């Protein structure tokens, strides 16, 4: 879409865009370019020089079992937490959309978690899920040793998944509810008139009509699980035990800032960037075409 009426003096027009362009050049394109350059060199930790190594950084990362472990952990985390957050939100939104008495309450309350900072909710869940105090301690009284995120990698992974899903249920809920409410009532009422039940209507009318939202949220949730997980991991598990929750962004941080391996961290950043770009392209191309719009 284009404007028919515009202003003539295009020099002034460019001036309006200059602040944004300066910002993204300085804080986006330059660092992104820098990351590419670093990933192709070995940077000395305290400055002083670098050596061109071509694709060696990528080779050594892709040959590293710890890196693959980090990718696997990220995938498990993304898969399960996205699934949980989306299914719970979908069910809650579909039911809220039935607009029974009191549904305003859910519309108000269910989005609270999304407003909370990841580290703050992580600290809350660290207490709630602590093996020695809080609530899992009760379970541990009954089955000693059942739950110990400090020692058992699966428990630690479960902890960060619960914390992340809790936050994103609210987010998904907003979008699902908006999508449900955009479906014309008359459509559903007509189907009801024809004698189709609630479940039938859900699968035949509502669900197909919200598939664009589902795919949109799928991509957003997976992307966010790569980024927004940092605070949760840092507060709850610090990547442990034994790297069980060393997600990709956390590994970039610990290799780059704690280990001072700028080049290795840059190469990992590039791989993660490619992954996110690929996801975004999938969202724009593939999904927008395949999913039938209303």
């Amino acid at each position: 879409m284009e404007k028919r009426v515009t202003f003539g003096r295009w020099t002034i027009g460019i001036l309006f865009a200059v602040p944004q362009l300066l910002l993204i050049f300085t804080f986006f394109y330059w660092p992104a370019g820098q990351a590419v350059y670093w990933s192709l060199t070995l940077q000395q930790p305290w400055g002083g020089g670098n050596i061109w190594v071509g694709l060696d950084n990528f080779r050594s990362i892709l040959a590293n079992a710890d890196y693959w472990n980090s990718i696997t952990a990220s995938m498990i985390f993304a898969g399960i937490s996205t699934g949980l957050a989306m299914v719970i939100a979908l069910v809650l939104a579909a039911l809220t959309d039935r607009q029974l008495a009191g549904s305003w309450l859910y519309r108000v309350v269910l989005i609270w978690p999304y407003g909370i900072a990841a580290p703050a909710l992580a600290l809350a869940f660290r207490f709630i899920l602590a093996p020695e105090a809080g609530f899992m301690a009760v379970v541990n009284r009954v089955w000693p040793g059942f739950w110990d995120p400090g020692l058992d990698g699966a428990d630690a992974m479960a902890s960060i998944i619960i914390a992340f899903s809790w936050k994103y249920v609210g987010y998904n809920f907003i979008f699902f509810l908006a999508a449900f409410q955009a479906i014309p009532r008359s459509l559903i009422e007509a189907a009801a008139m024809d004698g189709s039940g609630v479940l039938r209507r859900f699968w035949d009318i509502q669900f197909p009509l919200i598939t664009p939202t589902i795919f949109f949220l799928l991509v957003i949730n997976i992307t966010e699980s790569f980024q927004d997980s940092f605070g949760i991991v840092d507060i709850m598990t610090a990547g442990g035990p034994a790297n069980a929750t060393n997600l990709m962004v956390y590994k970039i941080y610990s290799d780059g800032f704690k280990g001072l391996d700028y080049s290795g961290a840059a190469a990992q950043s590039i791989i993660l960037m490619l992954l996110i770009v690929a996801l975004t392209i999938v969202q724009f191309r593939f999904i927008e075409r395949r999913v039938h719009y209303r």
Partner: protein
Amino acid sequence: MKWDVAELPVYAGTERKNSLVGGASLWVLSGKSDAEYKGAAAFLNFIHDPKTALFWSTNTGYIPVTKSGFDFMKSNGFYDKAPYKGREVAIESLTASEPTEITRGIRLGNFTQIRAEFGTQMQAIFANKVSVQQGLDTLVKNGDAILERFQQTYPGKTLP
């Protein structure tokens, strides 16, 4: 309850060696201006002063870094009463023997990465995910890889 501070026990028949020193360190890098070196020297003099050691240890809980600092604190009666009583054991443990090749402290390239790797493998061992031998083998392998990477970053250089 009666308890006290003591050095780590050693097996009967083994000789006690000094324990490894760890923690942060101060470095003066080359290639700075004369004025900066003057400042650095003044700062090191200040840190080196026994009176500074007393202040430092009292406020941070760390050990004094020099022998003279320790002697000064001892003669001042620092270690005689609670809550500082027993802290002299740390010095005894650190100076239990002449430092040997493997106990004189670690100076490694990419040390923080190797230390993180150490932590990871220890966690894997204690969580019973791998056997002790497996964990140590992986640690050696990964540690060597990290060292090799350091060597590639600084080709042709040796530690002074």
